[in-house]
């Protein structure tokens, strides 16, 4: 049994592609309304981990428990219905629908017509998308499409939000705004963020988990992680050179 304050737990989670081990025996725990950052070099298995949490990939072995429910073999829509929202790495939106329609499709997944409309309006205002409502999402800039996707996830009112590089391709201003938003949303939902941008992580991080070669290397506060020799070696040192 998971403890009542634990929203997400994985036990011995493993994913192999043919002979390649992408995720090896990950035990991960996240508390209610926790904000966690996930870092690690490219190929460390962060996106694979996210995809398994949202049933886009099926684990080879291991177990995923969300809010006390075993979702290891669930379908993506079932996971979403239980309350996990994800923003994928590449903007994953409906390019040929308008901004309003994109958000409406998300909101109506949870609410009736009237509440969904109100919720959509509210989310668009909070994310400053109101001016873009009638525009086709495919015509927007990369950063704007990130916002739309974020808005869709927020409109779902999930209990857990997974954000795969939410600040990628954003200006400094936009990044700040995103951090602000994350903190706000965090009042009602647990959040896991994958990011490379250390400044951004510092803005929001409470606890940081470092992935390396499919395993959890270390899990601690940002300061301690930054001070860790091992982490510097595999990740941070390199990252600063980039």
């Amino acid at each position, binding site marked *: 049994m998971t403890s009542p304050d634990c929203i997400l737990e994985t036990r011995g989670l493993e994913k192999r592609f043919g002979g390649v081990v992408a995720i090896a025996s990950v035990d991960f725990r996240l508390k209610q309304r926790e904000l966690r950052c996930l870092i690690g070099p490219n190929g460390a298995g962060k996106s694979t981990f996210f995809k398994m949490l949202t049933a886009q990939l099926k684990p080879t072995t291991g177990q995923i428990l969300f809010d006390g429910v075993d979702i290891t073999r669930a379908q993506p829509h079932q996971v979403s219905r239980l309350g996990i929202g994800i923003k994928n790495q590449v903007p*994953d939106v409906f390019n040929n629908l308008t901004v309003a*329609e994109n958000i409406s499709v998300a909101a109506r997944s949870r609410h009736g017509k009237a509440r969904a409309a109100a919720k959509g309006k509210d989310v668009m205002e909070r994310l400053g998308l109101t001016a873009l409502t009638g525009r086709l999402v495919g015509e927007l800039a990369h950063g704007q499409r990130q916002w739309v996707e974020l808005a869709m996830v927020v409109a779902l009112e999930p209990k857990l939000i997974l954000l795969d590089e939410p600040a990628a391709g954003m200006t400094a201003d936009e990044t700040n705004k995103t951090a602000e938003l994350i903190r706000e949303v965090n009042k009602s939902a647990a959040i896991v963020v994958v990011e490379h941008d250390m400044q951004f992580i510092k803005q929001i991080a409470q606890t940081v988990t470092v992935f390396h070669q499919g395993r959890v290397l270390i899990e601690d506060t940002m300061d301690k992680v930054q001070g860790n020799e091992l982490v510097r070696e595999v990740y941070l040192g390199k990252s600063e050179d980039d």
Partner: protein
Amino acid sequence: MTANWQGNGGLVAATVLGLVLLLALPQIVDPVMMIELTSYVIMAILALSLGLIWGYGGILCFGQSAFFGIGAYAYAIAVINFGDSTIPLLLSIVVPGLFAALLGYFLFYARITDVYFGVITLTVTLILYKVMGATSGSQYVIGAAPLGGYNGIPAVPPLNLPGRPDVALSFDGLFYLSGLTLLAVYVGLRLMLKSRFGQVVVAIRENERRAELLGYDARFYKLATFAIGGAIAGLAGCLFANWGMFISPDVFGLAQSAQVIIWVIVGGTGTLLGPIVGCFAIQWIATKLGAQQLLNANLVLGTILIGFVLLVPKGVVPTVSDALRRLKFRPYVAPLVEQRRVP
């Protein structure tokens, strides 16, 4: 929804225009022409069904004629057995709808997509063609209706007033009925596409993974779209059996399947007006070609299909409406064109 503003006004306009045409045409067109027009109208219903499945559902179905044929056979077999046409009419909608649902369950829930879906639906249609063509022996009888194999079922009784088998539908009556059905299907689909269900269907076409991550079971929505399309095609099949008063395995043939695809691609995927326009235009051309011996009909249809794929991949209706929109006629044109299409 932003789609609403361009929706209702246009929908009312389209309905009124449709009703006017429906009432006016028999007054000004000669009877032979009316018979031909009726067949166009019936085929336009079939075209709409694929327009829904392919254009909005994003499902590449190469076997739309299967549902058309099943509907026609279901009606013919049932009406020969029952006499009264009310239940047979319902069966012609329900049976192909169920068949589509079963096939959809078999395929969507195995996550068979795209090209494979096309090849399998084509193969299923071919199986139906072969099987129905091999039923000419006297042992192949359902109730009072011999299946007739390659010959098909001749002398299919026409629709009648519910409960009154002696009051049969006339040629004119069939035109009004088909026209009203086309209009009803068109309006029904437009309303459906504006509903939550329709929105989700389009969203799944745009990005299936995203829709699932938003909590929608794409398999179910595709299945439902496919079944609705199958049921509509079946209804068209029933009307077709009434029109020709016969039904034969030819309705399952490759030629018929190819035709429906051509109508939709010429008219434009992702619109409902497109398939109707494409259907009327191509049928008119096909009849014209059939009346002369100079140019083979297949030759021309093939050229049209290649030409459209290469040069006008969006189809006529979206291309024209885009052009008009660029010319700033948007307020007048937009209400007639329902949705954006796949680019």
